[in-house]
């Protein structure tokens, strides 16, 4: 809607806030309604899994690469899955070039925790030889266009990438790691489908999936990751405070919305097609 390349004006802030109090949003959505998701998977030829996800106009293209290395000493038979995010200057004049800043670190960490605490990736299956060789998976998210709510878009992008995975399966030999001819697919290694829901808060109004103007104007946000029936990860950001009742309500809402989203998106359709 408005040109958000610079300082948000007072009248825009008032416009968004006044309308939210009447449960009206500038793009016509309801308070608990997502923008449209558009998903494409496994398009990157050089990657072992990828997903191009657009939420509204926010677009994140994620790719999966692997390495083989030694495991952490306290988890000698488990592989590692690490998530990184880059907010590209292409995506918005609000993003500066340079090393990852707080916003990109927050995006990576919130998505990572949503995946990790849901036991989404079965890291025991990523072990080639205990104590010697495990897979290290790199899930790298690149923000191509910014229109608010990077976290929910990133969550779906990272998850779909893992589902689309086709990692060459290795066996440990004295000559090093050799290819068995098979692949570790998302079907094998992905166990759970976590979804993260981000809410914005302006004054007393809470709403799902902030668009960019709403995000720039809001007092704070809350991101809640859920599996089918459990809350697995939460992040509150910004200076807003939430009452206990509000938090309980959001927890409950997230499970409900998570179920709807899981069914609607049907992410398993994006698993790798290996002949």
């Amino acid at each position, binding site marked *: 809607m408005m040109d958000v390349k610079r300082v948000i004006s007072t009248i825009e802030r008032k416009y968004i806030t006044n309308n939210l109090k009447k449960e009206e949003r500038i793009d016509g959505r309801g308070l608990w309604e997502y923008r449209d998701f558009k998903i494409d998977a496994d398009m990157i030829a*050089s990657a072992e899994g990828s997903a191009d996800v657009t939420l509204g106009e926010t677009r994140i293209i994620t*790719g999966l690469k*692997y390495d083989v290395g030694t495991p952490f000493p306290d988890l000698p038979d488990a592989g590692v899955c690490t998530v990184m995010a*880059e907010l590209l200057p*292409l995506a918005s004049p609000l993003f500066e070039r340079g090393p990852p800043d707080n916003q990109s670190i927050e995006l990576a960490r919130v998505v990572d925790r949503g995946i990790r605490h849901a036991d989404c990736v079965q890291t025991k299956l990523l072990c080639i030889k205990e104590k010697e060789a495990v897979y290290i998976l790199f899930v790298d998210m690149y923000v191509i*266009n910014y229109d608010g709510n990077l976290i929910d878009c990133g969550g779906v992008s990272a998850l779909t990438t893992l589902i689309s995975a086709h990692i060459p399966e290795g066996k440990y030999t004295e000559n090093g*790691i050799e290819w068995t001819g098979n692949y570790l697919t998302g079907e094998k290694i992905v166990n759970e489908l976590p979804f993260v829901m981000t809410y914005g808060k302006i004054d007393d109004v809470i709403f799902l999936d902030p668009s960019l103007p709403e995000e720039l104007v809001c007092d704070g946000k809350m991101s809640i990751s859920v599996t089918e029936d459990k809350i697995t990860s939460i992040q509150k950001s910004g200076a807003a405070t939430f009452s206990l009742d509000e938090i309980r309500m959001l927890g409950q809402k997230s499970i409900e919305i998570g179920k709807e989203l899981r069914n609607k998106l049907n992410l398993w359709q994006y698993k790798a097609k290996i002949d």
Partner: protein
Amino acid sequence: MVLIIKDEYPEKLFREDGKRLDGRDKTELRPLKMEVGVLKNADGSAYIEWGNNKIFVAVFGPREVHPHHLAKPDRGILRVFYRMATYSVFDRKRPAPGRREKEISMIIADCIEPVLFLELYPSTSFEVFIEVIDADGGTRCASTTIASLALADAGIPMKSLVTSLAVGKIDGEIVVDLSGIEDKAGDADLPLAITWFNDEISLLQFDGAMDTEEFDKCLTLGKEAAEKIHQIQLDTLRSKYISIQESVKESSSESGGEQ
């Protein structure tokens, strides 16, 4: 990185039937698709799929120079940032920009500058952000080609577009538009770019070994191929607007014409 499937190069780069490994003739281009205006937050933008290459470009400018000390009082500055995503290559690339990316950024900037009117924009900055999300040989050429479309999309005055591609030698034969494998396993690689307002070369690099006859053939075939690609660039620019004109005509003829 430890690779389980090794990045090995085939012995022969031509098939039994005389075609290249991907089925092409010697002067045939890989499938090429371009689009402008794909990134709404940029002043100008474009996207290209060329073979397996997939590249986004965003242009910002003319705008104020940040940091200010880089501004030139008598002309504008053009900065190009060519970057590759970690997953765009077979062997994962480290996230931070490396020397190769910085060198390519410079070469692309030098290549594009001749078509711009930087002297009309004192103390001004033009920035071109290139992100390669999938690489398969000739990314600097594809990037240059699509960057010139993004600049046109931004409404920045240009003397003409710039078109770039790589020609080279594989298994002793001169070919046009090297793929990733041909680039790595071939005998010679010659990326070049042409500025159409003066029909001259504005980007030229060479790695390999060739005699002068082969070199000459490269330049000739390169120019011919560049002409084909230039046509695709111009059609892409036009099609964004022409498709709207057509759909508007269709919908008004459906509703019985205008009053």
